[in-house]
């Protein structure tokens, strides 16, 4: 294994941990707003680390560019959808959870 392989393993594992944490948050957090918060961590950071880990393994810049584009699109869609869900929840009268 080369240095970039070790780096890939580290990035992919960390990305996987973010997805795991995000999933736990989605299942365990008390209300829709905190769950969205957990989910965006998985989508943004988890997917970003996964894409970075995979980009180290590709042969051409074009493929790395496509991977990066996938991450940017997921960021854009994730941010918008989270906002829409949160706004919809507020409109339905759901109050943010307080301890």
């Amino acid at each position, binding site marked *: 294994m080369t240095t970039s392989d070790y780096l890939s393993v580290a990035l992919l594992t960390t990305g996987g941990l973010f997805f795991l944490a995000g999933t736990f948050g989605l299942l365990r957090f008390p209300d829709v707003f905190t769950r969205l918060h957990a989910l965006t961590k998985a989508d943004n950071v988890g997917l970003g680390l996964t894409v970075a880990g995979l980009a180290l393994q590709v042969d051409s810049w074009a493929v790395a560019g496509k991977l990066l584009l996938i991450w940017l*699109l997921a960021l*854009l*869609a994730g941010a*918008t959808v989270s*906002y*829409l869900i949160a*706004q919809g929840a507020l409109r339905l009268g759901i109050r943010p959870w307080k301890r």
Partner: protein
Amino acid sequence: METLISWAIDVALALLVVSLAWRALASTDLFKAIVLFIAFGLVLTLVWVRLNATDVALAEAAIGAGVTGALLLAAYAKLRATSPDAIVDRAGGISGIGAISLLILILLVAAALGYAVWTLPSDYTGLGKEVAANLDQSGVSNPVTAVLLNFRGYDTLLEIMVLLLALLGAWSLGITIPRPEAAPGLVLDTLSRLLVPLLILVAAYLLWVGAHAPGGAFQAGAVLAAAGVLMLLSGRELPAALATWPLRLALVLGPATFLMLAVITLILEGRVLKLSPEWAGRLILIIETTATISIGVTLTALFMGAPPGEEDR
């Protein structure tokens, strides 16, 4: 080790797909059932990827999970607005005798399917060899496109007709989908401004790449429809000038071109959709381009519901 990992992934996917399908069917909450159905479509996409069927995976993701999911959610919004009872009262179900006869019917179908698979000759390799041997006659280098648009073009012709018929059915029901009560806001508007040009570009790419790699008219049309649905959701409407004959022209462009080509080949070549090798590439591109436009517009129109201009009847 590697075979063990891929075996584990396959088993996990198979269990997930069956359990999602079951939970979507068994759910008494209609909204939950729709969300589970979309998740089912996405996992099914992964199954197709594992089977190396990238073309089918793309179609499943775009049409099966994406556009169908949007249509189901639109139908749910309509149901909730008109008949709120229908979306909660699903527990009634079927009576004892009905359930038993249904079970017997399902078991018979499953047994017949199982028998058909069981009696397949074990050394049968499918038609892959014949397709590969004739690929240079087809005008394209992607075997899936060669089968869909050339060797079995009439299947695709019928599929496109079915889509048009579905829209005619929806239009004759005169269903209007309720518009969102609140203004869509800046965020959704910005998203659609950013994404719609990109979606059109991706649709064109999928259409073009279909000649030599996974892609094609249905996938490209579904991506085009995604752009249309996004624009409708962010509050844009079809301009009245386009809602009359231009809309109808876009709807029949693909089916009509395909049908015309079928008639012309029947007269000139003596067989329906027999494409001569030197023309096949160009003809397939013409069919796929017109079909992409029509599929995209048809799927968007299905999401709109009633034909535009007749919504207030």
